């Protein structure tokens, strides 16, 4: 049996769609992935990320569209003929095999010689720091350990295309960083393509060559991490990328991309127009960029404060009850008045109606 | 006041005697308020009665049984001893019964009464279109069988009345030393059966199956009895025109059903049941035993003729019965079948030496 993905150059999704009954979980997704690329799939919970991976792996049939590997159409191939590696969101470990056999399963299926299996399993176990647990059954492992077995099982086969569905969600920060480094290392080493679902922006930003943002089964934006972090193209992507403050307002002045918006605060807010049409706009600011400033344009009352290590993050209520999220280096009392402002180059302005 | 009588039939006898029983209720409503009829297979009855008697709760009042279960019950002491204890309620049996039936009544040792009787067999039933000359000696049968392998059949004796009657009739025909001792006295019979076995394809376990094979043309001659000759043709299992042949100088091996009373039934019921037994031995009731030739002829007592029987019974016998039976019954001697112990020994030996031989081939 030939593995379809061996030595491929390019993976192409062509209007890939999938319905569950009346619900369209994927709506004509199109995307091209080059070999060696690391793609992060981001999007709110339930937007279709896992569905997309399952379709790619051949576990769900497409309702419409096609998947191409170079010149070969593969969406009708069985999963075992595609040769993609996959880390399942819910692990799907084999409950009757110990850790070692779980990890070695793919190699065993591939007919790899015994000694080679042993070596590569050892390696994979080492990567996920589970060498000491190798004799346990999945049911005897902690959640994070199970997740690591799932990772090891997928990477042990060194597949040309790896699909990972939130592979680090149950690991602690330290381990997550280590695993992230390992995943990148292995990706480089194998020269494989990786499609990586995550809800952790840090992960997406640091690992990916390109990020794909999905929403309601549709691609909203594809771009480099910088693009997405700095200049989300739509208000909803912005909100998803951490621009938590979404202040409705009226465009009062525009000079090229430099705009001024009246949001009903003491002064106008200055920002960058990204996607502006008409007068009614939304101003998007990250909480980390909105800080107390003596001359800040926004007057508000502190309603809550939480400690977040480097700094405090607070909520405040502006005029008309609009909710504001801001950062402060020094604690503020709840109920105190505060003036807030953000640098204009980090304040993005979108047409209204797009944020949801 | 009237009682409910639980009747259990393990011999298929209700078929014949139920009308007579019901007549008793009709005539004696002051004695019987209701009959509850239950049918069951014979072997398990003894166990059931034993369990009930050990627990002191017998709910079976009246048993209709064949030889086998009767003997089993006698061996285990399950039956109430009727004679001589209640002899005053019954006439002189030796006078009453047909000699053949009386032979069998004696086997009951006072613990039951023969209710109906027939001389049974051995007879050979054949398809006249396929068999022109029906064998009339065992030797002829063997020769026929060898010439037409697989065309003769009898059912496994343990499961079949005609099967066992055929086997039990052989010692008389072959002149064996002791026709009542199958283990030591049947040398010729066993030799004959083994020889016969070589041309028999297999033995069905049940008469019905062998009837069916005769009827559908797979077999041409099978063993039968008077009842199994008449009733199946009446029922349409076997074509009407099929014929019966007999061996020259054969001896009837009779068969009978009994009525018995388990030990431990309440006094009140006992009285009624005894009354009823006496009633059933009266000619008017015995005439019912003709039935549809099920146990032809059926009545166990002397002096019952077909014209005393119910109308439909008469019609059936006239249509499906065989006129020659009367003469055959009158002219040929009648013997009782093997007693239970010997019968079982015969079954066992047959299974081991004849039945199992099929396996070695």
């Amino acid at each position, binding site marked *: 049996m030939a593995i379809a993905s061996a030595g491929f150059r390019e993976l192409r999704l062509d209007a890939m769609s999938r319905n569950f009954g009346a619900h369209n979980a994927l709506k004509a997704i199109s995307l091209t992935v080059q070999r060696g690329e690391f793609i992060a799939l981001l999007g709110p919970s339930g937007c279709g990320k896992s569905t997309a991976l399952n379709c790619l792996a051949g576990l769900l049939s497409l309702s419409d569209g096609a998947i191409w590997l170079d010149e070969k159409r593969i969406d009708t191939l069985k999963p075992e003929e595609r040769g993609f590696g996959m880390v399942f969101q819910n692990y799907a470990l084999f409950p009757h095999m110990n850790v070692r056999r779980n990890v070695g*399963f*793919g190699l065993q*299926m591939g007919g790899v010689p015994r000694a080679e299996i042993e070596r590569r399993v050892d390696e994979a176990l080492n990567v996920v720091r589970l060498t000491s647990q190798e004799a346990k059954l*999945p049911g005897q492992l902690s959640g994070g350990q199970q997740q690591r077995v799932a990772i090891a099982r997928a990477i042990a086969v060194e597949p040309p295309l790896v699909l990972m569905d939130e592979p680090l969600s149950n690991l602690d920060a330290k381990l997550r960083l280590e695993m992230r480094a390992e995943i990148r290392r292995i990706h480089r080493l194998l020269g494989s393509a990786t499609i990586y679902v995550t809800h952790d922006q840090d992960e997406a930003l640091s690992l990916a060559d390109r990020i794909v943002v999905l929403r309601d089964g549709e691609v909203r934006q594809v771009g480099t991490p910088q693009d997405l972090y700095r200049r989300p193209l739509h208000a909803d992507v912005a909100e998803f990328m951490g621009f938590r403050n979404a202040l409705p307002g009226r465009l009062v002045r525009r000079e090229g991309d430099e705009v001024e918006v009246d949001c009903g605060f003491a002064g106008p807010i200055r920002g960058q127009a990204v996607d502006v049409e008409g007068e009614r706009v939304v101003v998007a600011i990250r909480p980390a960029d909105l800080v107390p400033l003596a001359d800040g344009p926004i007057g508000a009352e502190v309603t809550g404060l939480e400690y977040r290590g480097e700094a405090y993050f607070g909520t405040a209520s502006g005029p008309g009850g609009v909710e504001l999220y801001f950062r402060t280096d020094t604690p503020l009392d709840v109920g105190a008045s505060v003036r807030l402002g953000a640098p204009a180059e980090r304040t993005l302005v979108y047409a209204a109606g797009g944020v949801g | 006041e009237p009682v409910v009588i639980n009747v259990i039939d393990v011999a298929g006898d209700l078929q014949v005697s139920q009308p007579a029983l019901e007549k008793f209720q009709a005539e004696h409503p002051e004695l019987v308020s209701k009959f509850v009829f239950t049918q069951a297979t014979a072997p398990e009855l003894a166990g059931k009665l034993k369990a009930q008697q050990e627990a002191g709760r017998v709910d079976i009042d009246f048993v209709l049984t064949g030889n086998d279960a009767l003997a089993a019950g006698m061996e285990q002491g399950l039956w109430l001893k009727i004679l001589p204890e209640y002899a005053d309620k019954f006439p002189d049996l030796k006078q009453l019964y047909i000699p053949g039936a009386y032979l069998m009544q004696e086997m009951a040792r006072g613990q039951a009464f023969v209710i109906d009787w027939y001389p049974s067999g051995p007879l050979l039933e054949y398809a006249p279109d396929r068999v022109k000359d029906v064998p009339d000696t065992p030797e002829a049968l063997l020769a026929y069988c060898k010439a037409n392998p697989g065309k003769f059949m009898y059912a496994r004796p343990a499961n079949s009345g005609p099967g066992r009657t055929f086997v039990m009739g052989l010692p008389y025909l072959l002149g064996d030393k002791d026709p009542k001792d199958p283990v030591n006295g049947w040398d010729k019979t066993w030799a004959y059966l083994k020889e016969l076995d070589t041309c028999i394809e297999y033995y069905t376990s049940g008469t019905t199956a062998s009837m069916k094979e005769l009827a*559908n043309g797979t077999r041409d001659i099978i063993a039968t009895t008077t009842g199994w000759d008449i009733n199946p043709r009446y029922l349409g299992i076997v074509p009407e025109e099929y014929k019966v042949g007999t061996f020259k100088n054969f001896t009837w091996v009779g068969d009978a059903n009994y009525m018995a009373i388990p030990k431990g039934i309440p006094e009140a019921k006992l009285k009624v049941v005894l009354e009823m037994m006496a009633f059933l031995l009266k000619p008017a009731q015995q005439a019912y035993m003709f039935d549809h030739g099920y146990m032809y002829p059926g009545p166990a007592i002397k002096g019952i003729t077909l014209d005393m029987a119910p109308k439909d019974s008469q019609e059936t016998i006239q249509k499906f019965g065989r006129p020659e039976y009367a003469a055959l019954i009158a002219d040929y001697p009648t013997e009782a079948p093997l007693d239970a112990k010997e019968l079982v020994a015969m079954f066992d030996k047959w299974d081991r030496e004849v039945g199992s031989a099929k396996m070695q081939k």
Partner: protein
Amino acid sequence: MSASSRPRQRTLADRGIDGVTLLVLPAALFVVLLFVYPFVYGLLLSFAPKEGGWLGNYAKFFSDPYMYGTIWLTLRLALPVTLLNIALSVPVAMQVRHMRRQRLLTTILVLPITLGTVLVAEGLLNYLGPQGWLNRLLILFGLIDRPIRLVHNYWGVFISLVITGFPFTFLLTLSMISGIDPALEQAAATLGARARQRFFNIVLPLIVPGLAVTFCLAFVDAFSVFPSAVMLGAPAGETRVISFAAAQAAFEQYDYSYASAIAMIMAVVQFGFVGLVLTARGLFYNGPAGGGKG
């Protein structure tokens, strides 16, 4: 609650005795009350033969090839039939579970358990008999020129045991296989396992505990085959099964003591196989058949 009462409670719980364990009591009590006495009675009865010493019945059984041969005759039927039924059920269940409208087919496949031995025996005698539809058809198509014999021998009983036994194993296997999380097979597929490999590596190991129990129950059923061995087989010959020998002892010879002894021998033989299988079952994984979260 006082501290002193604690150690005892804990040790009991640690030894596995708690509220849940007590759930076994009603069933156990029921069996003890209603089964153990009759069983012991029967057991003792088997040591009180009509003639001979206390082991007389057993000696009688094991010195008579016609009797002890029944063990072999029974095994010769029960083992292959049971294994065949399981071997057929598993692939059929594997296919049926994928079907969308599987209820009708399941109902039809399970239907023969409702037939009862008598109907199967009657049906087979008719259907496979010399003038049955099957033989007529085969003759009509010229495949054979005279009826083949499929009943009143080993095969008659064998076929009837397949007909009544297959639905039993199928129903159990189907429900057992459907308890396996499909995600496991999917995971195996992404790792390159083909259908056959998925079956042998994932599905089979996960249903082995269930199959073991299925085997035991089906085997016990087949081993105690009785009426069909009489009606469809050659009860004096090649299908003289052991329960038939016991029934003969009890109901023809009315020797309950000997019948009990034969029944005990029967139980011991069955227990040999069942115990072996159940012990082996303990060596396999038997736990939940899910693969992680969700």
